[in-house]
């Protein structure tokens, strides 16, 4: 019998319950299809994560050519690669010790790449200066920020405000660090907007049981597909200033904006234009990554955090924490450089979605318009018969819906219960791709008929 039964309480209290039945089933079906089993579909369409490549989108050729040349510099002597690829690879390799991507780099990332990222940020924000000193290259840097903010040994838990709905692994990270989660609900009826009143309410409630220190925002939203207006961002910043909250701005979907009348405003830009008392004091950490956007290189693990108005002494400790992780993967750093400084001109091969009410004709489904990001979060209006059926099976109705959707059409999407939703409301997180839409339509019509 193991003595290791008594493990860290922090690890035990994890958000996700048990082994994921939906993913396991999807894997099983894929294996069965490979072994020749016949179904009304040829393959499982996996939309369970924001992973473009897994969903069938091809990587950008220029990116992969540069990476290949960096990995195997003998290719630089080759005729097979275009000149601009070679030049970019050479300039990147010059920044690596020993000219090899196998060397360690500075813990916060290669200096030239951080510089490139800071220039990207400045361009994006119409000239607002960005210093490489405030940039740390690291995927999953949210965890490092949480480690700084969360005092797990205090008798009064450190609290972080998070939106409902929100994606699961961030909640998991919070639980792992021993933070108290203070949910604030996004307003579905108004397109999943962030209402400051709701923030205020949540904070007030949170203060009764914990010590709130940070406000987590995901803009553009995951799973909602919402994008914040400039006015909304200003309100949130003012709220954070008044209530003394550290803003964690997850902006990884910033380059996926579709609607013609919408524009992405970075928290940093809006902050910088709000008058010196606020712009020089409100603390902000802004996250971006190569996993989303037009490159979709999730597996390379490239990302960065830009820190704004951080206490210099604290920043030194952040640097130290980063140093114990040695350094970010070099291939991921290079992908980041390519994202921040893509070849010009040239349209990235990114699927364009149009802001269309795709679910209009389907009964029992309503959806806020997709403005940005990869996903929409349509609301499923289950008839009472369906709710009863789920209760009998002892499962969340939307999870059960997803299982059957997977079984009958091979479409793997995630249920709303994993992201948080108002009581008695049900959703799925969905990518608007043609194939997926078709499969969903077929299944949903049948489903609603059966349970009417």
């Amino acid at each position: 019998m193991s003595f290791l039964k008594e493990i860290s309480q922090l690890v035990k209290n994890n958000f996700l319950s048990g082994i994921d039945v939906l993913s396991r089933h999807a894997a099983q079906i894929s294996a069965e299809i490979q072994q020749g089993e016949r179904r009304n579909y040829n393959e499982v369409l996996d939309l369970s994560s924001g992973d473009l490549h897994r969903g069938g989108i091809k990587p950008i050729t220029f990116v992969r050519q540069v990476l290949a040349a960096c990995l195997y510099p003998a290719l630089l002597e080759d005729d097979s690669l275009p000149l601009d690829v070679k030049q970019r690879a050479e300039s990147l390799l010059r920044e690596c010790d020993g000219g090899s991507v196998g060397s360690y780099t500075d813990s916060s990332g290669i200096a030239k790449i951080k510089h490139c990222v800071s220039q990207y940020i400045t361009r994006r924000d119409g000239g607002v200066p960005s210093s490489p000193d405030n940039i740390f290259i690291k995927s999953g840097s949210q965890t490092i920020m949480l480690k700084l903010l969360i005092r797990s040994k205090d008798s009064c838990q450190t609290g972080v405000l998070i939106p409902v709905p929100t994606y699961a692994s961030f909640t998991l990270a919070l639980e792992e660090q021993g933070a108290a989660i203070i949910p604030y609900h996004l307003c579905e009826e108004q397109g999943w907007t962030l209402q400051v009143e709701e923030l205020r309410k949540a904070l007030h409630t949170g203060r009764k049981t914990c010590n709130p220190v940070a406000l987590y925002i995901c803009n553009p939203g995951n799973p909602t597909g919402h994008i914040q207006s400039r006015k909304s961002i200003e309100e949130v910043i003012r709220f954070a200033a008044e209530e003394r909250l550290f803003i964690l701005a997850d902006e990884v979907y910033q380059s996926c904006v579709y609607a013609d009348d919408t524009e992405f405003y970075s928290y940093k830009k809006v902050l910088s234009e709000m008058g010196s008392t606020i712009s020089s004091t409100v603390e902000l950490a802004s996250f971006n990554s190569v996993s989303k956007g037009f490159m979709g290189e999730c597996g390379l693990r490239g990302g960065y955090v830009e820190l704004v108005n951080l206490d210099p002494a604290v920043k030194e400790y952040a640097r130290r924490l980063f140093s114990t992780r040695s350094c970010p993967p070099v291939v991921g750093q290079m992908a980041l450089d390519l994202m921040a400084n893509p070849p010009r001109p040239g349209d990235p091969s990114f699927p364009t979605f149009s802001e269309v009410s795709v679910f209009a004709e389907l009964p029992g489904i309503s959806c806020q318009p997709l403005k940005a990001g990869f996903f929409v979060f349509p609301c499923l209006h289950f008839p009472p018969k369906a709710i009863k059926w789920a209760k009998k099976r002892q499962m969340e109705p939307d999870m059960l819906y997803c299982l059957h959707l997977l079984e009958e059409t091979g479409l793997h999407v995630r249920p709303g219960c994993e992201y948080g939703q108002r009581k008695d409301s049900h959703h799925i997180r969905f990518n608007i791709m043609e194939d997926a839409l078709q499969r969903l339509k077929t299944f949903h019509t049948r489903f609603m008929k059966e349970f009417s």
Partner: protein
Amino acid sequence: CHAAIIKMDLKKKKKKKLYWAHIWMHGTPSICQLRLILYILHVCSVISRFTPEILRKGIHGDTMTENGCEYRERVLTMDTMNPNVKRVEYAVRGPIVQRAVQIERELKMGIKKPFTEVIRANIGDCHAMGQKPITFFRQVLALCSYPDLLEDGKFPEDAKSRARRILQACGGGSLGAYSTSQGIEMIRQDIARYIERRDGGITCDPDNIYLSTGASDAIVTMLKLLVSGEGMSRTGVMISIPQYPLYSATLAELGAVQISYYLDEDNCWSLDISELRRALQEAKKHCSPRALCIINPGNPTGQVQSRQCIEGVIRFAAAEKLFLMADEVYQDNVYADGCKFHSFKKVLFEMGLEYSEKVELASFHSTSKCYMGECGFRGGYMEVVNLDPEVKVQLTKLVSVRLCPPVPGQALLDVVVNPPQPDEPSYDTFIKERTDTLATLAEKANMTQEILNQVPGIKCNPVQGAMYTFPRIHLPPKAILEAKEKEQTPDMFYCMKLLEETGICLVPGSGFGQRDGTYHFRMTILPPKEKLKIVLAKIKEFHQHFMAQYS
């Protein structure tokens, strides 16, 4: 004299606590002077428990500051930050390296120094010091990265077949897709077979393999699992002194209790079971010891533990119910005659069911060391043995927080455990590159210990394995005194001087731990042979000069 009494309220869970401080001043203090006093007091430990907010409220209440701005104290300050973070130190990339970087900048700007380049012998980074990557590995990775190259006749067929196989196991056939958190299944299966081959056929279950972002990631994950409890029942983890400071840093970060056991410098840094026993007994008085970490081959010491020693450790762990963590990242780096790498798993299973069914073990490996030296890929894995099934479920959940390890690193691991076979086209080149790399390291290890041992005042144990030397340096009392005045540990003082005078960057022994009153430094054996000779000569010269200066 006028007394300005400052009264501060400290609200604590509805209970009011009043703190008084008396300040005697000449004249009537102005707002500015009061603010200055408070600032000074704030710096003193007398009111270090007060948050800046209390101070602010005590003086300003809710009014404006002098220049009309609403004073807003930061949310995240040294006082409000997670206190565990303050205890984190990582010497390998610490202050001496920061100074080395500064000096490099100065050299670039044209500032004259007694040397023309900084030699970074502080970190185990082979490629940075000129070691070449293994051609076959890089070919496979390039093919995986840009699959169009599969049509390119210049790549050998064996590299192509491996690339195809890896890509098939990736989502959407791309290195850019997330993998499962535990790592790509096919790769874990390949690693399991590699381990079976290495350990003479002892079964390895791929489900017990967890791929990670370098071995460091897996080590931190296991420690997170292990650390729990409060006060007397707070987890204690046994680590060697000296040790690779990832362990001490992580224990500090997690607020766990570090239980130090000393390696025996007089006996080639060997591990003495009686010392383990001593450390454990001592620790039991104030914590709950749960794990024992061992690095073999050792970092920074370079010792390769004998089979006997490993058996002794396993017996000890079994008797004392300790979770064993075996850091084996240098397993191919064994140089000394008569030394051999014995994996903890192999020894465990050869000790019979009494141990192999009971002792819980995690072994760690990585792509960063050995003959690959691919640090920048952050490829690594751990194998867990006899883990409680419920705990394993928690482990699988825990690794899912960071989504997945970098896929290029996973792909690299796969090709490391599937190298060219004798009947394949790339075999000859591969074997030559691997042999040459390891032979060069062995040569340099030998050369290093020989030359350093010729220096009076430096004593160097044999570099049996790994990539470092950890010689003991005898410092004269005068030097120790001056170090104290400068508020530096004596070996930091020594290393800083060495850096400033010769441009050689080493890490002081205090960064790894050492017996009180002893001083060491860690130097890598990685610079190219000719440069290494020069480095060693310079250290010899510096040491003699240093001794003369401070006698």
